[in-house]
Structures are given as C-alpha cells and as structure tokens.
C-alpha cells in the first residue's frame, strides 16, 4: 500500500471515530439551526463539462484541480480522497457525513474530494461540475460560511481560469445553477412544529421568497428526525450577498415559530411532552435492536428535550453526533466490516446504549 492510501485509511478511521466540528452545537441559535452551508459550483474554461468529458479529461481535471485547490489554501491542510478508489462502504461514510453527494459516490470515472479538518470545508472534483466548494458551520452562520468559500474560490481562481460569461455569470452544467453558482442553505430542527402539525407555516414562509424546503434523512415528503433543509432555488439575477440576506431574513421567523410552539407545548402539554421525551430516552437506552428510522425519531424527541432543559445530562453536540454515528456505514466501519440489517439494528442499539448509558 502506498503512503497516500495509508493516509486515507487513517483519515477515514478518524472520521468514523469523531464528529464534524460543524455538528458541535455551538453556533448561534444552534438549538434550532443545526448548521449552515454554502456551496459554490465552478467549471474550468476550455474543458467540457463532466457529462461530456472522457476519462482522460477527467483525470487531467482531478490532477490539475487537486493542485490548484491545495495551493490556494495550504494552511487548510486539505486531505485528498480519491473517490474512484473507495470501497462502497467508505463512500457511503462520506455521504453520511455530508462531505460528498450521492452523485459523486455513484458516478464513474476519475473523481475526488478534498476535506479540511473539522469537516468545515469539502471540495468535490468532477461531480456535476468540475468543482463544488462546500463550507459548513455550526448554527446560523451563513456570513462566516461565505467568507471562507469566497476566499477559497478566489484563491483557486489564481491558478485556474473559470468558465464565465459576461451576461450569464459562472457557467455550470445545469442551467439551474448558472450565475452565482451558489446554494445557500440552513439545516433546521423543528420537532415542535411537526408535533403540532404546523410545518406548513414554514413551507409558506419559504416559498414566498423562492426558497425550497426539503426533508432530510427521508424520501419525498417524509422528514425523519424533523430536520429540514431550507435553500435558495434561484442563482442568477441576485448577488451572493442578496441571496444570503434573503435567508437571513426568513430564518429568524422560522426560529420564532418553533420557539413559540415549544413554549406552548411546555406550558400546556407538559405532561405529554415529558412522556414523549422519557419514552425516547428509555427506548434508546434499553433497546436491543433498533431501526434507523426509529432512532431518528427518538433522537429528535431527545434533542428537543435537551433544548428545553428537560434533559440536562446530555449535550447537543453529543446528540448531534449520534444522528451521524448511528447511520449504516458508520456502524459498519466501527464494527470493521459489513453487517446485515438485523446485525446493524443490534449494533445500533448497542452503540446507543454505550453512548447514552445503558439500562
């Protein structure tokens, strides 16, 4: 094995043992806004987009961009992972960590990702576009995300010319991203609004200003774990700052709705709330076998309990980490090999018991 492969193995082991710093639960309004994310899509001038690029071109892009990105920010200590060489279980791990997309994992041909310590910075090479720069921060911190992404973008551009049009802005494979190439999103936790069936309010507030609301950890309309990702849909005709400001205006409204609903629940449904939280804790610490779906649901109730001060011996950072570490690839990496569903459900229960203190 070459030294680089060893490095990557060590790196992935490290990931499986730790948590992204952006999950720490320290940022502003982190009880409701789990994380903020900014993504920039860029392509290099004079090269076809990925869907029309053959393997030779793709390899060339990986080599060139790996150098360009690393030299743009040497102090960031970015670790390069050759995604084309990864075992499926490891690319799943990176997906579970939100460091790569399913598209990068599943596509063919030379491709990679550069990941910074704490997992705040992740730059995908050869996904839908040549470059996808992603910055994650804990809590509601979009401006901070932007400053980091902007600086990295400017640095990369010093050694690689971007495909750019006077009228249409940064050119992307998909016209839905053209212009700024920016995706501004926040991940919010809204168990109160879900319990009182008022999630519609969020959809309405968001749609008014062209923002999309998507459930995380679930297909279609399901929103397992009561997590929602809110992001811009439009990328052309507004500046990056305007798009960030749009989000900055609506998120406090949504935080307000959730906080009010939680206060209401505490005032008028305290017993029912206490019961839900206690049951969640009891099952999470006592079960011998538990599915991913059930875990998401119970952890969500537990998380709310922590936010409301009803549970005071577990931190937000710890429960945030549990959402990630109870996912299939994380469990399997910890175990050291693949696990069938029944085995995974048992491993998950065992892991939860060891983290939360078993019954």
């Amino acid at each position: 094995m070459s030294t680089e492969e060893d490095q990557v193995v060590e790196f992935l082991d490290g990931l499986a043992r730790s948590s992204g710093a952006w999950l720490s639960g320290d940022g502003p309004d982190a009880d409701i806004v789990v994380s903020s994310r900014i993504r920039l899509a860029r392509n290099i001038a004079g090269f076809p987009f990925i869907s029309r690029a053959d393997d030779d071109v793709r390899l060339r892009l990986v080599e060139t961009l790996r150098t360009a990105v690393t030299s743009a920010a040497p102090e960031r200590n970015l670790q390069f992972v050759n995604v084309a060489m990864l075992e499926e279980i490891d690319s799943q791990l990176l997906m579970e960590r939100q460091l790569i997309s399913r598209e990068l994992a599943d596509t063919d041909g030379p491709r990679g990702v550069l990941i910074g310590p704490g997992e705040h910075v992740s730059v995908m090479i050869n996904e839908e576009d040549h470059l996808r720069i992603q910055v994650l921060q804990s809590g509601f911190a979009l401006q901070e995300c932007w400053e980091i992404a902007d600086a990295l973008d400017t640095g990369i551009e010093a050694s690689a010319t971007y495909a750019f049009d006077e009228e249409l802005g940064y050119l992307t494979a998909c016209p839905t991203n053209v212009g700024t190439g920016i995706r501004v999103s926040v991940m919010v936790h809204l168990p109160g609004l879900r319990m009182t069936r008022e999630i519609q309010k969020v959809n309405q507030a968001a749609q008014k200003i062209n923002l999309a609301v998507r459930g995380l950890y679930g297909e279609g309309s399901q929103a397992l774990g009561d997590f929602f990702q809110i992001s811009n849909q439009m990328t052309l005709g507004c500046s990056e700052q305007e798009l960030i400001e749009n989000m900055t205006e609506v998120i406090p409204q949504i935080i307000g709705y959730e906080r009010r609903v939680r206060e209401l629940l505490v005032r008028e449904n305290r017993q029912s709330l206490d019961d839900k939280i206690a049951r969640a804790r009891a099952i999470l610490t006592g079960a011998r076998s538990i599915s991913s779906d059930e875990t998401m649901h119970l952890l969500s109730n537990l998380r709310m309990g922590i936010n409301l001060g009803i549970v005071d011996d577990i931190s937000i950072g710890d429960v945030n980490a549990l959402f990630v570490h109870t996912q299939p690839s994380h469990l399997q990496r910890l175990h050291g090999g693949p696990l069938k569903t029944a085995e995974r459900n048992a491993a998950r229960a065992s892991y939860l018991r060891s983290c939360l203190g078993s019954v």
Partner: protein
Amino acid sequence: MKKCRQCANQATLHITEVLEGHATEVHLCEKCARDYLDDSESSDTDSVAADLAAKLEELQSATDEDLDNVRCSGCGISLSEFREVGRLGCPCCYDDFREELKPLLENIHEELFHTGKRPARMLESHDDQSRVLQLRNEQREAIRQEDYEMAAVLRDQIAKIESILHGGDVSVTETEDKHDPPSVF
C-alpha cells in the same frame, strides 16, 4: 415511470394542486397537461396555467428534428440531447444556444443578468475558451483516425492557448510533461 392519468402515454408533467392545505398530485403527458391547464377553473391559477400552456405550445412546436440540427461547436451536443439529460456539454453551449436557453432560464431565475461575484481574470479569454474546446474536439477526432501527427500539432496549439488562459501557470502545463511520449493529450 408514471403513466398519464388521461391516456396510456408516459407522464412527463407532474402537477401538484394545493387546495385548502390539501395537496393532490396529477401525472399527465404533454398533450393532456395542456388540456388540463386550459380547463383549470380557479381564477388564481389562470395566469399560471395560461403561462404553462403557452410554454408547452412552444416546446411542442420545436420538433425533434429542429433540435437535432442545432449542435454546439465546442462539444457537439444537440438541443434535443440537452432536453433529455437536462445538462449542457461545455461552456460554449451557453454561446451557441443562448437564444434557445433564455426561455428556460427565465422560468428558473429572476433576471437574466449576472450581478454577483466576477472572477479576476476574464474576458479577453472568451474566444480562447471556445477555440480550445474546438481544438480538443479536432484532436479527439485525429486520434480516432490514428493521425497522430495532426494530434500532436493540435496538442501544441492547445498548450499555447492554455498557457494564456491560465496565466502561464506552471501547475497546469506541468501535468502534461508528466505523460510519457508519445503524448498526444
């Protein structure tokens, strides 16, 4: 793939109607969707339905043949291929298909003029960008025809423009030197 609710064709449009907080999904093919939208009763959705119906009219009037004839000079993708996969082939596509793309862009975005960040190094390179893409196409063809002499000539031309595009940065041209001869890439 879902079938059209009215006829047996494949559904390509998926309309979600929301009435008093209750959402229903309707799956239709292009033709039935137009009829459905024309019949739509609610006064609020009239203009939206009319817009959608008009856009469908536009799409249907461009036949597949027309779309096939328009190809990008940089990567060879046709408009009909683009419609199928939803992705463009290279930066040149935005030039060659500029007019055809405008209605689509208007649907998605606020305004059709970029007002955000701009890269430091710009537009003198615009023609060079297109030229490089064309040269790469020709080089690929030369290799396919096993005309390696031509491919080598093209490789040098590409390298010259690239060194302009990338500000003469060593990191880009260095990777070329790493390849063993005969390198035609």
